[in-house]
């Protein structure tokens, strides 16, 4: 049974149709990569999974329970199963790194302050920043902030981790550190991962399965091998990083 399934999801903001009838089954323990150019609705897709956005039409199911139409209070319980790495980290600026990582534990569990601190410290160690605890997020570099945010995302021991562009804005070395972390967390914790990205290196490295979102629909569904061999022009151009006639039309007009 898939751990997560999206059924005929549609979402629009005003006149901007972002998702049309997207259906996707996500297997337990695997890493799914969602590719797509900026602004196609990758973040919107992720936010539907944890109920931060509600679909106009369609359903979201998690472990056999429909979660897109449940009350906020019940949703909070379901969300304990998810870790979400936001695009820019979304660390709380007014809290230290350790307090940031401890935050979900404080909200969701009845552990004592000492136990929480110890657990948060473990998570920081897991992302390779055991000394960062007392510092503020503002003192960290971009890559370090993402790792702290990742430590926070895994603090509750989630079943599913959602990564929103984990390597965007990082140099190739820092990106690879994140890729290795994604692999390691999957191996160590056995989590299901959904990685949204437009970084092909990252996609090839971590993916068990790759889908591509284009024009509000899933344009491709396969593996790292099959996407390399795909003859679809949109897929090919995306992998090669070449702009097509559509994207360059404005230049010819000018």
């Amino acid at each position: 049974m898939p751990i997560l399934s999206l059924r005929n999801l549609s979402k629009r903001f005003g006149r901007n149709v972002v998702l049309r009838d997207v259906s996707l089954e996500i297997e337990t323990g695997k890493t799914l990569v969602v590719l797509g150019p900026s602004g196609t609705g990758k973040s919107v897709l992720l936010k539907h999974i944890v109920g931060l956005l509600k679909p106009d039409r369609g359903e979201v199911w998690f472990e056999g329970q429909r979660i897109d139409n449940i009350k906020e209070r019940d949703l909070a319980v379901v969300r304990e199963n998810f870790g979400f790495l936001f695009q820019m980290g979304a660390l709380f600026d007014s809290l230290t790194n350790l307090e940031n990582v401890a935050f979900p534990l404080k909200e969701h569990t009845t552990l004592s302050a000492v136990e929480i601190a110890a657990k948060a410290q473990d998570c920081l160690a897991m992302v390779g920043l055991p000394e960062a605890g007392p510092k503020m997020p503002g003192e960290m570099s971009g890559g370090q902030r993402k790792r702290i945010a990742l430590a926070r995302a895994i603090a509750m021991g989630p079943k599913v981790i959602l990564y929103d562009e984990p390597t965007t804005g990082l140099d190739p070395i820092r990106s690879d550190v994140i890729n290795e972390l994604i692999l390691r967390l999957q191996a160590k914790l056995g989590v299901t991962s959904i990685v949204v990205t437009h970084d092909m290196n990252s996609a090839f490295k971590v993916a068990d399965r790759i889908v591509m979102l284009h024009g509000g629909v899933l344009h491709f569904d396969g593996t790292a091998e099959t996407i390399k061999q795909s003859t679809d022009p949109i897929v090919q151009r995306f992998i090669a990083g070449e702009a097509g006639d559509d994207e360059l039309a404005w230049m010819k007009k000018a």
Partner: protein
Amino acid sequence: MPAALIENLGRRTNNSLAVFGDFCVFCGQTFAWLARLLFRAKTWRLVLPQMFDVGVKSVPVVALTGAFIGMVMGIESYAQLKSIGQEERLGALINISVVKQIGPVLAAVMLAGRIGGALTAELGTMNVTEQLDALRVMGADPIGYLVVPRLIACILLTPILTIYSDLLGVLGGYFVSVKTLGIPAAPYWAYSDKAVNTWQILEGVWKGLFFGGAIGLISCYKGFTCGSGASGVGRACTESFVTSFLTIMCMNFFFAKMFQDLYRAIYGFQSLF
């Protein structure tokens, strides 16, 4: 042309109504959380730092403004009253204006500028950097966690700042009238005492509660709904101040009318002179 004009007007009206409806929902949710969280120790642990931020740092500004207004009123009214030989009643005039209107409105407006803007900027930044989403994902409701403590702080602090503003306004008026214009102190205070009683002072303090509530709700709402990027946050801050300011002025008018009617119904008309 006129059709386009009307269409435009219609769309704007529609948008404003939608925003107002949205704001009402926000207020409803805030009050629901307020009722649930008001008696929890955890809430108050979040309120106290906010009170410090909102309150202590604003005292000097509010007090100083109050003092200057009191002094200006002394200077402006003295000559007129003296020309009819009534300069000893200056105290009544200054002090009743200060405690009923100038003190509370000034405190609220200062707070709207100093704190309203800061609240909107803080929550707006959290909004555009997805920190509000992060709170939700981690099981903490942003309204309960962020809005409620800030609202409580604003509601409690506006009346307190009103008292500071009143106090310094009264002292400023006294300083100018008695110390520099040479009105004898005894009749100055006697007339003031006759004009200002507990009712008038409480009227100002009571209004402060509502002004504080309006500032807190408007500023937090603007932060929660701001557009993306730094420019979105900046615009939200400006809108937040303007909206709070107009709301305070408008509320003050209705309070003035209400309290006048109420006072008259209970005590009848009482002349200042």
